[in-house]
């Protein structure tokens, strides 16, 4: 018998064929959680030029390197003061359980950073556990109310998310349990699609007035953030500045989600690296760097990523998926009563496996992170989650300051573009940094 000649098509590979066949069987697009899986230019494509003869390093283990971060200094009388420039991104109660919300608040408070509510309102668990809590004002306005506006430390107006710029939220019926339904004023078990446009304002000129209203309601005390999904970032950042934002959050295409159409996650928006450079350019163009703070998110994983984001001009980062992974997402075990217990069979039950799971939308999270199921949610113990997340955030901070010290900076906010080079032509073009070993910046 001769060896069969098996040649896989590049255009119609097995994955594509599987996609077409699933579409044909179901008549519905795929919905999933987490972020883009395709490789896009990212912070791994940048490198630091540390100190040597032409620059002077700090003693790595002895000299102080400040990480203090202040957000919202433009108009708010009570800006947000954080011990580190690494914040927890907005993730909804509904997507996450109340126990996870509590874990996030506890960890954030212990390391001196902020956490953020999400599309589904503020829970008492997160308010009580978070010293600094940013309250999202989303198009859906689920659970949005003036008491929580007054209880919040800052307000974040969400225009879009990196995983789905231009799209609204989504929460499938299995996660709309009685408490979630009550908080969102929805029937239990409904496949909830939230609006993509705010109900009471339309263009950027309206946003000016909306922001002023929120300032009037909060007596000009609280910083107002504006969050955009990364698309036309240069223009959007300028418009957000014009609208009166204190802080602008730019979320790149790699940003995570709890549930969105795959076609959206993989095909809409621009990478975080490109978005960050555009955002910084916009602020510099308006001479607003330092006046309006910039938070970048979307695919931030390590202290190196944070350091690079700061060097490119961000004031802080926000993390979503990294937080989930820290709590045990995609791990083969969960921790219960101090013991690791296998979750492998539960992954298999939802058609996933540790390392490959993106099934947050199902509500059947095998490690108890993105679930409302009364049994599964017990798999995440708030104290254990908080400890792990605190460790993760501390590690990121230590990595970031290691790099900052090596670059000779006494303050992580002194990291600058001049400290960076690019490893690939794409990254050099997007970040507008010289290709390593050259002075060549594509396009300039």
């Amino acid at each position, binding site marked *: 018998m001769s060896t069969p000649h098996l040649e896989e098509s590049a255009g119609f590979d097995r994955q594509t064929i599987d996609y077409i066949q699933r579409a044909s069987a179901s*008549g519905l697009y795929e919905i999933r959680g987490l972020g883009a899986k395709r490789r896009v230019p990212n912070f791994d494509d940048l490198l630091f030029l540390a100190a040597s003869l032409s620059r002077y390093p700090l003693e790595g283990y002895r000299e102080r390197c400040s990480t203090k971060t202040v957000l919202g200094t433009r108009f708010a009388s009570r800006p947000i003061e954080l011990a580190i420039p690494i914040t927890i991104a907005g993730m909804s109660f509904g997507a996450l359980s109340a126990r996870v919300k509590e874990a996030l608040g506890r960890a954030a408070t212990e390391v001196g950073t902020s956490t953020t509510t999400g599309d589904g309102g503020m829970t008492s668990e997160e308010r009580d556990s978070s010293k600094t809590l940013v309250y999202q004002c989303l198009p*859906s306005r689920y659970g*949005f*109310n*003036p008491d929580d506006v007054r209880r919040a430390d800052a307000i974040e107006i969400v225009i879009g998310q990196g995983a789905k710029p231009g799209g609204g939220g989504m929460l*499938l019926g299995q996660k709309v349990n009685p408490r979630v339904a009550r908080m969102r004023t929805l029937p239990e078990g409904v496949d909830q699609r939230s*609006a993509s446009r705010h*109900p009471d304002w339309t263009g950027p000129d309206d946003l000016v007035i909306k922001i*002023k209203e929120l300032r009037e309601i909060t007596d000009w005390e609280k910083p107002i953030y504006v969050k955009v999904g990364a698309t036309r970032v240069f223009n959007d950042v300028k418009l957000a500045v014009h609208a009166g934002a204190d802080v602008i959050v730019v979320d790149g295409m790699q940003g995570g989600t709890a549930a969105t159409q795959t076609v959206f996650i993989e095909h809409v928006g621009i990478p975080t690296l490109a978005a960050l450079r555009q955002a910084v350019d916009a602020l510099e163009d308006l001479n607003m760097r330092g006046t309006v703070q910039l938070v970048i998110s979307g695919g931030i994983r390590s202290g190196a990523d944070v350091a690079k984001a700061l060097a490119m001009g961000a004031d802080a980062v926000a993390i979503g998926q990294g937080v989930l992974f820290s709590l045990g997402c995609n791990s083969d075990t969960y921790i219960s009563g101090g013991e690791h217990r296998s979750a492998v069979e539960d992954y298999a039950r939802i058609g996933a496996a540790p390392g490959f799971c993106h099934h947050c939308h199902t509500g059947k999270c095998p490690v108890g992170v993105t679930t409302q199921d009364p049994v599964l949610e017990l798999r995440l113990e708030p104290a254990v989650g908080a400890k792990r997340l605190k460790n993760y955030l501390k590690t990121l901070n230590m990595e970031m300051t290691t790099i900052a010290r090596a670059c000779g900076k006494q303050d992580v906010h002194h990291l600058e573009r001049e400290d960076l080079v690019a490893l690939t032509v794409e990254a050099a073009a997007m970040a507008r940094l010289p290709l390593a070993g050259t002075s060549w910046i594509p396009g300039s």
Partner: protein
Amino acid sequence: MANIEAAREPCAMANSLEFDLSKDSLRDLNLFLHRDAHRSGVTEVVVNHPDGAHSIACGMNSPTNIQIHGHVGYYVAGMNKHASVTVHGNAGPGAAENMMSGRVHIRGFASTAAGASAHGGLLVIDGDASLRCGISLKGGDIVVGGSVGSFSAFMAQAGRIVICGDAEDALGDSLYEAVIYVRGEVRSLGADARFEPMTDADRKVVAQLLALAGMSFDPAEFKRVASAKSLYHWHADADQEY
């Protein structure tokens, strides 16, 4: 604040205070309403010369009676809780947006998104309301003496809207559990909205809301619009092109 105190005239009624927005600032007015109105025992605040200012009396958290004489801009009584706010004039976009409780009465016309996302309370509009009246409504009640513009009650989740005049296109698009009562013509219904028979309970609700709004139409003249609920769950045969 001190100079404002001096400039402001006590009204004829002992516990009534007047602000004149041609002289006093909006900030001072709202700060007084948030911090001092209730504490100082003032039960009525009269606002003159609003001249289209935005965000008048937004963020109220006390049962103060606020009378605004003239036209107002965006977000009058936004996020209102407990207060009773009357605008003797027209209102710009987002009147009583996200109201939680209390009562907001627009004596004239209201622009777009009146009562958007209101969780509670009663919004009365004597004249017409523009596009997206009651959009995203979450439990508040709205009574419109005139007609409403297109996409009114879009994605409205809970609460009731009584429209004494006509409704433009796409009324009740993607409705959840809110119910709409219309007296006049409906140019078109939005996706998933449908007419349903009026029951005695519906007529009672309409009568009550009309009475609260001070309007005297016959509840028997109203039609009920509610959700067909065909978009509540995803399935391949549901029309996703709505």
